[in-house]
């Protein structure tokens, strides 16, 4: 593509690169003029973000709710009476006073600011965003041989996913911003309402270290890679779980923001080739990964060939991957659409999970 992307699109590349097409990103990567404009947009965005930033003071929601309640017409919201509220409020206010930690809030704010500053500094280039999944076959014995990245650099994980239960799909949708799909018709043997699990966003920053890699027996990272960083972001996500009488999940419908990665300057191919050269990765698996991730948009889905089969399918026109255990006791279908990965799995047949997947609304 030779046409320059619009200034608005270049602005979006600064902080929402997943919304920019591959063609546009490819153009920008090789266009000095566009890179200059992206840098200027990032610079302006960072300056404005700092100018508009406000101290991360904890708000006193209890006092504010009291104030709002006084301005509301009676009757009070359902389930609350005027007589009952004061004691409730006192209890909350007491607890709120005990848990407010301005220092913690200030530190968290500084951390967020510094991360935001780094992100806007245009030294992070998007290298990977999930648009599809593709199975990569490997033997389950290879699991123990897969390289542990912590041997080749430092890994810093932010966010623990904060897995917790939500009241219902609507609450989970509101919390995560995801469209939580509803199952049109439950397969035979699956009954009742699901429990809804919500997980937050998790990110990890991996910093290459030439020294650590040398100690681990790996080839030294190529020039420019030492000290460079890769940031992986995944989630949030929502899982709806229908449990069978035996306690085993009978059906799981999970949806999550698809993983994406960006790096502090290293081109995708440099990162990929180095990662695939690390000791412990079987040659045939590395060869498959090299093929599947050539365009930087495919999430490799490792499938243990001794335990499961994979086959291609389609869900509402989107390519999907069906996984089925060798003993045919479990099946799953996974696909990615608009940056969201969805999986339907359970103690079901492949045709049943596909029927559920195609009936989601």
């Amino acid at each position, binding site marked *: 593509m030779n046409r320059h992307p619009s200034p608005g699109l270049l602005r*979006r590349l600064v902080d929402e690169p997943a919304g920019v097409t591959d063609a546009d990103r490819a153009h920008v990567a090789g266009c000095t003029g566009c890179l200059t404009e992206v840098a200027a947009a990032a610079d*302006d965005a960072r300056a*404005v973000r700092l100018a508009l930033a406000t101290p991360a003071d904890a*708000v006193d929601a209890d006092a504010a*709710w009291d104030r709002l309640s006084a301005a*509301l017409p009676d009757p009070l*919201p359902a389930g609350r009476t005027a007589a009952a509220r004061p004691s409730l409020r006192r209890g909350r206010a007491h607890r709120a006073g005990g848990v407010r930690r301005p220092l913690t809030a200030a530190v968290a704010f500084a951390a967020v600011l510094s991360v935001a500053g780094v992100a806007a500094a245009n030294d992070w280039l998007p290298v990977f965003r999930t648009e599809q999944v593709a199975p990569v076959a490997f033997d389950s014995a290879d699991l123990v041989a897969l390289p542990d990245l912590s041997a080749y650099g430092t890994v810093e994980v932010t966010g623990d996913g904060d897995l917790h239960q939500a009241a219902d799909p609507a609450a989970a949708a509101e919390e995560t911003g995801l*469209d939580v799909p509803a199952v049109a018709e439950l397969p035979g043997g699956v009954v009742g309402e699901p429990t809804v699990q919500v997980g937050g966003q998790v990110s990890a920053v991996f910093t290459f270290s030439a020294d650590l890699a040398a100690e681990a027996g790996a080839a030294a990272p190529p020039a420019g890679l030492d000290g460079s960083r890769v940031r992986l972001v995944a989630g949030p996500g929502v899982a709806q779980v229908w449990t069978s009488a035996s306690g085993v999940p009978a059906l799981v419908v999970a949806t999550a923001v698809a993983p994406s990665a960006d790096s502090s300057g290293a081109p995708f191919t440099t990162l990929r080739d180095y990662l695939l050269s690390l000791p412990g990765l079987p040659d045939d698996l590395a060869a498959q990964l090299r093929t599947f991730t050539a365009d930087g948009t495919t999430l490799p889905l490792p499938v243990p060939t001794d335990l499961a089969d994979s086959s291609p399918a389609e869900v509402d026109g989107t390519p999907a991957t069906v996984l089925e255990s060798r003993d045919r006791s479990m099946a799953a279908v996974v696909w990615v659409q608009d940056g969201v990965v969805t999986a339907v799995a359970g103690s079901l047949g492949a045709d049943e999970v596909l029927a559920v997947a195609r009936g989601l609304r």
Partner: protein
Amino acid sequence: MDLVVAGHPTPAAPGPVAVASAGARRRDRPAVADRDHRAVRGDLEQVFRRHYGTVVAVAARVLGGRSEAEDVAQEVFLSFGRSAVPAAEAGGWLSVAAAHTALNHLRSSRRRSDREAAVATGAPADVPDVADDVVTREGHAHVRAALAALPRTQAVALVLRHSGLSYADVAEALDLSPGSVGTTLRRAEAALRKELHP
């Protein structure tokens, strides 16, 4: 961040705009004067506790101070309490309403400040200024003035995006095409940047 409401349509722009206008008219009256006989939605407290911090943060981003941002939040939740906005769309609706209402406060404060300056000096009220009660950080007074002077769509898009809404959410909230959000944002940031480093 729960501000992100991708996939959940926020109300069309006219809703929050109407809220914001009503909020501006009520500004100098005590909140209790807003009592009326319309029913208050039953989930108000739940929505309030979930989103209060976010609404204050959006308003504070516009106003530069926490105190007046909390006043704005009261107005926004009063309006929400009487609305029929679906609970699933509350987050987006409240953020947009907070941005509009806070911008209304900013502009009305500026007008009042200009009038007061004109009375005090006898000079025409054409000198950009910001009321003391709006700006708590002196160094950012010119940023607030520039924010108030931006076209409304640009200002709201800027505030919402910097409050964490996705491009898709901003587009939906402001009835823009997703492609034009970046352009709107870019223009707004360039204009503000000039004020920061003229």
